[in-house]
């Protein structure tokens, strides 16, 4: 029996600006994707297998990045869908919404247990963008399902408030022990806890992505949709993906192949097919 295609909804809040490229990246990995308005009919959400909150500046980052969007009713609906096991990925500003709404890390569901604070960088302030190397700390999440722990990938970051912090003593250790720290910033060969600029924002222990305990809700600061194709990788990048890119120079066919961010969307599809639907294709 033919399995129905995976359907993903990208949620367009006022102020997001990455919804179109996120949709293209999802579709490039063999999934269907629609962009839904944040204030649209709630019942439509149930039609989808998973959800992505894309990057941008919801409500112009007023008060605090993600703080106002976290209070929108659609977040309550996403919370219910996530409770049923469906994946919800927040990318950058989407991650800020998931953290501000308490969906991640969700040790006590709905309780705000972390913050994404302003970047701390030597001799700089505010918004900062660069390609980062990331070490996969857990392959049990919906964004790393097709990867292996300790794999190193490379994805760009671009934000002013991306530093994972908490005042809950011991929480960070528990997140590592539970496999809820999904990715950390690393050196090009996976070296742990690097300094700036490899850790671009001063994030606690280099954390770049955190999930809930089931791995189906992930707040990640890097932008995988900006690394979905090899052609998007800069030739100057160090590490494996930079070498791949330089090796593909001049070949349009190879440059059109998936880049490092593509693995995130492959993971999303396989997570849904293998874990949510089961290998028999059951919904």
């Amino acid at each position: 029996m033919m399995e129905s295609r995976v359907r993903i909804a990208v949620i367009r809040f006022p102020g997001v600006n990455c919804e179109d490229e996120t949709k293209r990246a999802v579709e490039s990995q063999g999934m269907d994707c629609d962009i839904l308005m944040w204030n649209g009919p709630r019942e439509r959400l149930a039609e989808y297998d998973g959800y992505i909150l894309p990057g941008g500046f919801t409500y112009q980052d007023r008060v605090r990045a993600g703080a106002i969007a976290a209070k929108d009713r659609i977040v309550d609906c996403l919370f219910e869908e996530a409770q049923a096991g469906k994946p919800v990925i927040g990318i950058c500003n989407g991650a800020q919404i998931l953290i501000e709404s308490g969906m991640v890390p969700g040790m006590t569901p709905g309780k705000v247990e972390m913050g994404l604070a302003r970047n701390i960088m030597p001799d700089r302030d505010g918004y900062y963008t660069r390609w980062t190397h990331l070490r996969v700390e857990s392959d049990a999440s919906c964004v790393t399902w097709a990867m292996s722990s300790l794999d190193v990938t490379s994805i760009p970051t671009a934000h002013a408030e991306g530093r994972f912090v908490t005042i809950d003593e011991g929480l960070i250790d528990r997140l590592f022990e539970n496999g809820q720290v999904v990715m950390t910033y690393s050196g090009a060969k996976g070296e742990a806890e690097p300094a700036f600029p490899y850790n671009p924002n001063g994030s606690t222990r280099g954390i770049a992505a955190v999930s809930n305990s089931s791995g189906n809700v992930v707040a990640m600061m890097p932008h995988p949709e900006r690394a979905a194709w090899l052609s998007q990788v800069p030739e100057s990048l160090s590490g494996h993906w930079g070498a791949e890119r330089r090796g593909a120079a001049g070949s349009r066919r190879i440059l059109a192949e998936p880049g490092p961010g593509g693995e995130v969307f492959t993971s999303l599809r396989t997570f849904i097919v293998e874990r949510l639907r089961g290998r028999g294709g059951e919904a």
Partner: protein
Amino acid sequence: MIERVVLTVALKVTDNETLSALEALRTKMGMADSIVGLAREVQWELDVEADSPESARCVIAEIVERTNVFLNPNKHRSTLASTAHGYDGLDDDEVAILVTDRDGAESAAAVAAASRIGVMGLRKASRRIRWRVRLAEAPSPGDPGLLPLLRRIGVSSDRGTGLFSNPHSQTALVAFPWGDEKPLDA
């Protein structure tokens, strides 16, 4: 000698951030019966190396006049003082929720920016947001429901409650019109 100057900055044009916050509180967070108005100020506590309080104020006045480090005079109005309490100037039906970033990252940047443009006297800057919340009922010191209400307004401890401060990255104080201040973090 280090002298302290408090620079208070507010928009003189429409403050869209305040409008969005008020809208979120009243319509998304169910506070329409409790909150009737909102205003926002940024307070900078600035430590200046100077011979006297007057010369310290002159240093800050020069920064304000010549640079955009703290404000844009086309859009903002500002006042200078030697001290500022959270409760200064509150009406009887207002409280102030004062939010400070735990690490003060933007404050160090302000000092560095002032230094880069040649203002050498500024030694330290700390910044807080002062949200002036106008309540439907004037607050009273004996009301046991007041502090819980202000926490539901001010501190993001749960999904759906609290807006102004994420307690993991910020601290919050509340100031009352009768001249009292209390920590708001749970």
